[in-house]
């Protein structure tokens, strides 16, 4: 009996199936690339005033809380107001061109428009103060800012990454005295266990509940 389909038809069908599969793979790769591109891990982000954490934290040793004033009390860590910057820079480097926008902001009452580096989607209700209260150090999520001349995102901040810690927080805690230090090492397992117990962490089940982070 002769073949139902001609060799040409078979070839066309094979090519079509391959094309669909290829398209699916390409689509997945495209979306992954798009998501990754949004994260821009390790890529410094240009700012209106090229603020250097490396200089202020690394060289000058300024504590995080000096500028990010509400990190221990509120959900948002808070970007420093123009008045906080001018606390020093009304005296230091007063006439530098780099700081002209700062003085302009104080004069006009318009805030400085910083480009955000660590952005979470609106449906994530992240609370800094609880993390700080439990012993999560700044460097845990924001990386070694004292080595960043311009801020970049050190970690993806995706839900999967957050859950990695929420499922096993003990290994990510530090004593309260070392939360704001840049180079404090992680404590050994025994001390970490003690810290976790002292912090009265919620159960793993609670920490992975949807309602913990989403409302």
């Amino acid at each position: 009996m002769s073949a139902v389909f001609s060799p040409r038809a078979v070839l066309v069908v094979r090519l079509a199936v391959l094309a669909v599969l290829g398209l699916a793979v390409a689509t997945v790769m495209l979306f992954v690339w798009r998501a990754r591109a949004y994260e821009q891990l390790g890529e410094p982000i240009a700012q209106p005033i090229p603020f250097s954490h490396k200089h202020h934290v690394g060289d000058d040793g300024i504590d995080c809380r000096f500028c990010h004033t509400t990190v221990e009390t509120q959900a948002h860590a808070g970007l420093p107001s123009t008045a906080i910057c001018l606390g020093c820079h009304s005296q230091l480097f007063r006439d530098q061109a780099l700081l002209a926008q700062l003085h302009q902001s104080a004069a006009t009452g318009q805030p400085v428009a910083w480009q955000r580096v660590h952005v979470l989607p609106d449906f994530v209700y992240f609370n800094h103060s609880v993390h700080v209260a439990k012993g999560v150090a700044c460097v845990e999520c924001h990386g070694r800012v004292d080595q960043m001349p311009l801020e970049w995102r050190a970690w993806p901040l995706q839900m999967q990454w957050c859950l990695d810690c929420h499922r096993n927080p003990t290994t990510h805690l530090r004593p309260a005295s070392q939360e704001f230090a840049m180079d404090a090492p992680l404590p050994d397992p025994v001390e970490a266990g003690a810290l976790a117990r002292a912090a009265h962490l919620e159960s793993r089940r609670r920490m992975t509940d949807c309602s913990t982070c989403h409302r």
Partner: protein
Amino acid sequence: MTQPPIPEAGARLERVIEVQRGAGVNRRQVLAAMAASMALANTACSPPPRLQAHPYVNLPEGGAGGQPMYYASAFVRDGFAHGVLVGSQEGRPIKIEGNPAHPSSLGATDIYAQASVLQLWDPDRSSVVRQRLAREGDARVAPQIASSTWSAFEAAWLECADALADPHGSATLRILTGPMTSPTERALLQTLLARGPRARWHVHAPLSDAAAADGAWMAFGRHVAQVAHFDRAQCVLALAADPFSDGPGAVRHAMDWSSARTAVRDGIAGARAPVLFAAEATPGLFGARADHRVALSPARIEGLLWRVAAHWMPELTPADVGLADPAAAAFESRLLAALREAGSSALVIGGAGLSAEAHALVLALNQRLGAIGRTLTLIEPPDAAPGAGTLADLVDALKAGTVDTLLVLGANPAYDAPAVFDMPHALQRAKLLVHAGLHVDETARLADWHLPLSHAYEQWGDARAHDGTATLLQPAITPLYDTRSAAELLALLAADPLRDGHALVQRQWRTGREADFEAFWRKSLRAGVVADSAAPPLEVQTARLPARLALPAESPSATLTALFVPDAATHGGAFANNGWLQELPRPFTKITWDNAALVSPATASRLGMSTGDVVRLQAGMRTLDVPVFVQAQQADDLLTLPLGGGRRHAGRVGDRVGFDASVLRPASAMTLAVTLQKTGRRHEFAVTQHEIDQHARELLRTVSVGTALAPEPKRDQLYPPFASPVHAWAMAIDLDACIGCNACTIACQAENNIPVVGKSQVAKGRAMHWIRVDRHDLEEIDNSGFQPVPCMHCEQAPCELVCPVGATVHDSEGLNVQVYNRCVGTRFCSNNCPYKVRRFNFLQYSDETTETLKAQRNPDVTVRERGVMEKCTYCVQRVARARQHAEREGRPLVDGDVVTACQSACPTRAIHFGDLNDTGSDVVHARTSPRHYAMLAELDTKPRTTYLARIKPDA
């Protein structure tokens, strides 16, 4: 920022489209079009825009936001203060809580205080001074209104102020205000009146009962205000009154009554709860909770009062009491027994619809019983206006042409005055009409100058509560627009050297307190009340008894009596532009976005009417077409006409909603004989609850005093029990306390960014309230019962099983959680919910464009888009906030840390919320009650929201 589309791809696509419109296409062109469209689509899919952050230039002293800040102030309604805490987040007032220190509420709120925050952010609020450049009928030029400025107004005012002040001139000034209790405003008003020898003050209180004031005058020779003490009463009789809804003390009455009942149930020694008797014409919240209730027309209620009073006042002229109603006989005998037993612990309250003689008799009866000074305190009315004229006096002066300047301050007579005055024409007779108000309303449209006033939450001011206690108003936000407070306006008009509200209020309160004024000021602002400022009790003479019963002649069967009442949600029209209140289902009819003429079933069948028929009412020469709603428990041959509909210039929300009952309203009475004629037209109501009958489903259960409910039979369980090891949130709602006021519904709407959907969507059953108050007819008590229904947060939730995408899950604390970003909108969860508590966003209901409405939203709660399901979350944002606060402090949560919005607003504290794992918590205690049950428990959903059955009154 998106990249610009690739020009070549777009141009290529356009060329292909053009060709396709032409002769025909070939394969090559189709492939080119596909490739071009893909390239175009790709360019539109740019990465999300980089977000910016704008920190403060100078950090405000109170902090950068995040936590709500509460300012103690007051919401002023009809001149009286209702003490509130204005919750501000990020500098914007978004939620109102009651002030626990305030005597009018003791921490609870009514629907108006809750909805007042939306009134602050109303996009239709007046924002600029408006000047009319030419009047209607001015032959030379068409009438036009232009935006102006305060300084222009002040210049214009100064021109005529001299003429007004001239003692030898003839220019007259009339000032028309609403009821005014503010000491600062009253003092400034007196200053203004003193400057003009021919100036006069008129007070227009559209919803107050003139007959009550006349009755007090008849009895005592002076005006009095009545402060009722439900906590000291053993027997309360309400005659055509609803003390749980009417007046500035309504919330306090409900709270005192409920506290007394709770004390009795808890077995506290010496606790007594009042027995409530209601003789009412139209169903009210008090009557629904009354132990004994009878529905009578106002005339028959007066007859009842006369007969009852005769037992304590033998000198009372026997009236023609041939109006004895058989239904009232049993009621009357029980009432007499209760009043005799209560003696001086009795309390009689008269309401609108009674004649002045009846009000006088009520006061006399209270005095005879010994209630005055015990359950009833008489005080100087906080809104007393000695020497002030009435609206009728003003209209006479206007029509006589003797008014040169008329200033209307915080009143809207062009809308809410009885039509018999013909206010629009009367107002135009004034040579200069100045209107000051929150909205560009009907009166503002006729005015030569319209001045925008500040909202209560934007101004420094003061006001008095129902018992005279003063509250200092402090602003929670700087005025949104270029507005002035009423005090600042009066200071401007009186050429006061001080113009700033803060300075004016301080000056008012500084007199007599110079020594320690700063301490007094700070203390009063912080507490929200001025200590010891309640009005002292008045000494009154022995009440003069009215001569005879003043009843209208028995009306022929063709006429009905119309009773004018303020609408249960728009309150006489003042809140007509408030979307939350328009959409609030009225307690008894469950009507939204409308008002209706209520008739009893017997009258409706006698006249051959049914719900939805439009009838024409006629009184004299005036007619009004109204839709009819058949309401059980309404008195026969009585039509209730709610005032507050039919507004013409309320704003985008309130215009032309309902009918304007003031067309028929008489000059000062609240009742009127009308004739009725069917028109054959029909009217569709948007009702949220269609079935009032429970159909034996035992949703709302009742028990007799002292008995327990039968326990639920044990059922075999397929699933393991749900474990909430740390916190187990639960809610117990006491149906014996709920009065059906709907404060919980509005509080939830404010807290959770719940959208307003409009009349046509409500008619389709798409109202978005997360907690609704159902009304059921309870045959066993022959009365209505109210049942608030939030999400049950079932431990075996039927909704969680059927969601195909896992958008509704159970968290470890027992909350049924709705994850908006996973929801695809199959609505299977709502389908499976036996309680129907889930609400779906069928359309884009949340307004995402109007800036001021966006400002009101709670930043801790997601604003839902079209296509997602939402429902009560047990205020998970409040649970989270309390937990975060406790975690920061390093302590566990305790009972009382988490208070849901509905729980906080409830005037009778019917809602108990807390942690089941906390054995000492309020909700655990509530659940030990023998009245405890779960709704539809036979479905074995194991709801965390449970109820306490309502107690039937003693037979």
